[in-house]
């Protein structure tokens, strides 16, 4: 008697939780599950796409490439479209998680600047379409910094102790330190990483904080003199506070590309391709880039945008800046050496 009551109780509890999970319900309308970075699309464009195609979009955001990898590598991945960065594409391709895009379904691909096609992380753009791109550099307050900002060394200048903001991200921060030391941003030498680790520990007493999105507010408010930022964020900050200026140091930096991909497990690849084609439309890409402030790889879109964008070296860096920048590569197992160094810097 006691036993069956227990069983009924447990069964009821399970049934209740299952019914909650199953609450989604099926509908004939196709729903695209889109996974993107926060603040990284003009929401009006999502509505426009839904109106034009009758496909509904369920939009989710995340904050790091690593988080995206966990979601896409999961057995029950639900996402149909996603926006990973260059080095993660390499990893996703290596892990066989991406769907080979049928380019016939994306005629708007012709709008993309050939400079941004066929890059090292995805030769021939088999799996990915460029979405946004930019550099990593120093955003500084011209009223607080009198020295010329042309070297990463200024982040190690004791004159600015307590006014320096570093990016709280392993790849970016170790990357620029390697560049400062004249090393390869994708180094596989433990000695190089150790040198970068020591430089960062030596710098730590000068650093006001290691932040991510908060760097923008701090610099706009003038709470700090300089910080490491992505060029797209710099465009936004300068528009909020004209005292700010952006520089990509002479030693070189990282040039990055965020790209649109379709996971292999997607059940709606045709609709996903429709979505990618929509985003590559010149008018749409122009509106999107204008909204989020990051640089578009879409040449036709740039022509439609206000000419101030094309002339702005932060938004549209000249070729000589790009020539000294490197794309991140997937580090494979060597990432462990990077993360050990990063832990030591953060715990120092």
């Amino acid at each position, binding site marked *: 008697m*006691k036993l069956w*009551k*227990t069983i009924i*109780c*447990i069964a009821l*509890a399970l049934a209740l939780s299952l019914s909650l999970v199953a609450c989604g319900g099926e509908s004939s309308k196709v729903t695209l599950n889109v996974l993107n970075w926060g603040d990284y699309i003009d929401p009006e464009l999502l509505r426009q796409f839904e109106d034009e195609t009758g496909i509904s979009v369920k939009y989710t955001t995340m904050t*790091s490439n*690593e*988080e995206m*990898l*966990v979601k896409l590598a999961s057995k029950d991945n639900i996402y149909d479209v996603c926006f990973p960065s260059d080095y993660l594409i390499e990893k996703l391709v290596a892990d066989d998680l991406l769907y080979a895009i049928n380019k016939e379904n994306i005629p708007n691909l012709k709008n993309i600047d050939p400079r941004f096609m066929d890059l090292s992380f995805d030769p021939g753009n088999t799996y990915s379409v460029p979405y946004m791109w930019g550099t990593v550099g120093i955003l500084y307050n011209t009223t607080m910094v009198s020295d010329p900002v042309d070297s990463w060394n200024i982040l190690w200048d004791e004159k600015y102790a307590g006014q320096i903001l570093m990016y*709280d991200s*392993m790849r970016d921060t170790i990357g620029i330190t390697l560049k400062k030391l004249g090393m390869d941003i994708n180094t596989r030498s433990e000695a190089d990483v150790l040198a970068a680790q020591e430089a960062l520990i030596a710098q*730590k007493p000068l*650093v*006001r*904080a*290691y*932040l991510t999105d908060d760097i923008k507010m701090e610099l706009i*408010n003038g*709470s700090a003199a300089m910080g490491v930022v992505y060029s797209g964020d710099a465009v936004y900050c300068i528009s909020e506070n004209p005292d700010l200026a952006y520089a990509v140091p002479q030693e070189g930096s990282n040039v990055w590309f965020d790209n649109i991909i379709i996971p292999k497990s997607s059940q709606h690849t045709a609709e996903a391709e429709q979505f990618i084609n929509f985003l590559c439309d010149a008018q749409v890409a122009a509106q999107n880039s204008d909204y989020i402030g990051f640089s578009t790889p879409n040449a036709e879109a740039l022509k439609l945008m206000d000419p101030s964008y094309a002339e702005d070296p932060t938004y549209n860096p000249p070729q000589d800046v790009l020539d000294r920048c490197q794309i991140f590569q997937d580090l494979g197992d060597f*990432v*462990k050496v990077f*993360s050990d160094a990063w*832990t*030591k810097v*953060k*715990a120092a």
Partner: protein
Amino acid sequence: MKQTKSIKEKLAKGMRIRRSVFAYPYVLWMAVFILAPMLLILYYAFTNDGGITVENIVQAASWDNLKVLIDSVRFALYTTILCLLLGYPVAYLLSQMKKTSAALLSVFFIVPMWMNFLLRTYAWKVLLSAFTKILYTESAVLLGMVYNFLPFMILPIYTTLIKLDKSYIEAAADLGANPAKTFLKVVFPLSMPGIISGVTMVFIPSTTTFAISQLLGGGKTMLYGDLIYMKFITEQSWSTGSALSIILLAFVLISMTFMKKAERTTSDEGGGRLW
């Protein structure tokens, strides 16, 4: 008539549910959301590519990681001491007040607890940005921790103090002890159980804090909780993260045993304990 009664009786007998049945949903909840994750942590900590190993634990017990643990314990100690110094007088004053005014006053430190601690910590971040010298320092982290954990010190001490038998104090006065002596020799020792549960309730969560250090320390102060977070989320190294968690769990269990012992030796009398 007789017939219906017996059916009713039968029904009542059949339907009678023992009170413990009501605990099953909670037991199920515990099994799924507390026990299972613990077992998973054990599994990840002691396996490597399928084989059983202690390598993860050995790696996690490196000097660098232990330094972070020592730092966390140092922060937790400071937090506990500050909470005790600030919290005891408040609890004492509250216990001396009339019930109604004490209730009214306690609202002031209970109401903020209705809000999520992350929101309150964000609020501190905004407040402190007016004092840029303090934000992103160890002091800011300490301030955030004391602020968040103070109620957990005040409440147990307060409940011990109000349940304290007033005749002890009268007896002390009758025997010629002045108020200071009465407090030191009578009230304070009798409130020890409250102090110990307060210390436990502040020290243990402070040792395992994360996020507060991240938000107010500007990523410069890494506590053990942040280290575990980093291993799991940024590095995807679940085995190291689990091994670190096991070490923390062992440390927490050891310190709790000590505190329980201290509690038992001080007093079995006086006061309800919250914990």
